[in-house]
């Protein structure tokens, strides 16, 4: 059996994503342990110092990966997509509640990222930046007194907002019955042609000439063939 896929995320994109994801999960779990009074008593024990080191490791993953990406990836400006909004985004927001509960069409055609993804991207960018800067300030004692406490509150608020959005992100990409297919794209880098056509029509039209591949799935192995003008006749 063979299927047509669209190339969506390179190996570099995925490494960046999963490094940030791992960092963020480590950070939020260890962070909430100290945030909530009840669980904070865990930190007395030897596990406590381990939890605190995990928080630092998470921070390094969370901060270093985007910086390396920004320095070395050819797609370093991809995040600017999150700032490009137009009328179709308003249409998307209006149609979204019905679409995500009941399904059905009526969503305006979307680019590589749909409005919801752009919204999450925006929150991740701004919230992530706030988290990282306030976190470094707390880690290295940049401030004292009242300023330090305000920094702590900024750290709290950006973490809570980001975690709430992260739940939505996690849910839509891996649990929602109609959308969970999109998980494949960040796992393998490939998106099914059908899914791409349906969910990201504008993007699909841009890349269908160049970025399609055929994956032949045998029992034991799968072969990836780039699509050339010869086999484009499907």
């Amino acid at each position, binding site marked *: 059996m063979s299927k047509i896929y669209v190339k969506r995320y390179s190996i570099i994109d995925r490494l960046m994503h999963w490094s940030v994801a791992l960092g963020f999960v480590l950070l939020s779990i260890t962070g909430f342990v*100290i*945030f*909530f*009074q009840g669980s*904070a*008593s865990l*930190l*007395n024990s030897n596990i*406590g110092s381990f939890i*605190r080191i995990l928080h630092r490791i998470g921070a390094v993953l969370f901060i270093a990966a985007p910086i390396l990406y920004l320095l070395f990836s050819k797609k370093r400006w991809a995040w600017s997509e999150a700032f490009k909004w137009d009328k179709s985004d308003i249409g998307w927001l209006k149609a979204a509640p019905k679409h*995500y*509960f*009941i*399904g059905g069409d009526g969503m305006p055609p979307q680019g590589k990222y749909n409005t919801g993804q752009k919204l999450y991207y925006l929150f991740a960018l701004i919230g992530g930046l706030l988290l990282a800067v306030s976190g470094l300030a707390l880690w290295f004692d940049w401030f*004292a*007194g*009242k*300023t*330090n*406490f*305000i920094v*702590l*509150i900024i750290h*709290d*608020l950006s973490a*809570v*907002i980001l*975690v*709430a959005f992260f*739940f*939505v992100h996690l*849910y839509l990409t891996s*649990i*929602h*019955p*109609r959308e969970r297919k999109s998980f494949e794209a960040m796992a393998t880098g490939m998106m099914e042609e059908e899914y791409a056509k349906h969910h990201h029509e504008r993007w699909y039209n841009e890349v269908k000439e160049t970025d399609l591949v055929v994956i032949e799935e045998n029992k034991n192995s799968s072969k990836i063939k780039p699509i050339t003008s010869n086999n484009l006749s499907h």
Partner: protein
Amino acid sequence: MTRYGMLIDSTRCVSCFACRLSCQTINSLEIDKAFIHFVEKEEGVYPNVKVQTLPIQCQHCEDAPCVKNCPTGASFQRKDGIVLVDEEKCIGCKYCITACPYDARVELKKDKLVQKCNFCYQELEKGNQPACVQTCIPEARIFGDLDDPNSEINIEIKKRNAKPILSQYQTKPKIYYVNEIKVQEQTEKDIAGLTSLRSDLIKPAAGMVMGAAVAGLAANYVVATAVKNKEEKEKRGEENHE
């Protein structure tokens, strides 16, 4: 009920700093760490100079911001009003240092934990006075029970019109001062509002926001799955029909 407090008459203080030394000794502190620090003020031109010293240590506040901010419950208040740090529970996060308006808390170098004046509670159990009171040469310090109207400290507080310092932070401190020096308000320490904002509003609201997000998503899952299953069933039904 017993509620320990102290009176410090800084007009009697001779700036010998013996209280700090005895405190460091009894608590086995490192040489550059101390639970008592001094605010000093000089007035006049030589030879008519007046020096005033105000010893400051943990005020064992009734509404202690350090206790409120401690995430692990390491900082706590005993029934007799003494605020203590349980070193077994302290994780060295230093939120309490930030919260204390009196700068009374010290990060110990040896294990990076936070400690402070404990009113020498172990000496009290033996029937002694705190070390700083015992050692004060001009007897500028009086220690006792604030709940007992006939105690020496209560009588002297009234007689000398002693008042807590920095009472504008509204932490209800239990050290009363007779002083001619004004301790400067530290605006960067005025965080009582912020600390209660964090513990009384942000923390419960955070739990609710995240709970609401999870609940909303769960509801979506139930509805979306039901709709999808129904559609698939209908599809299959139609196919069978055909």
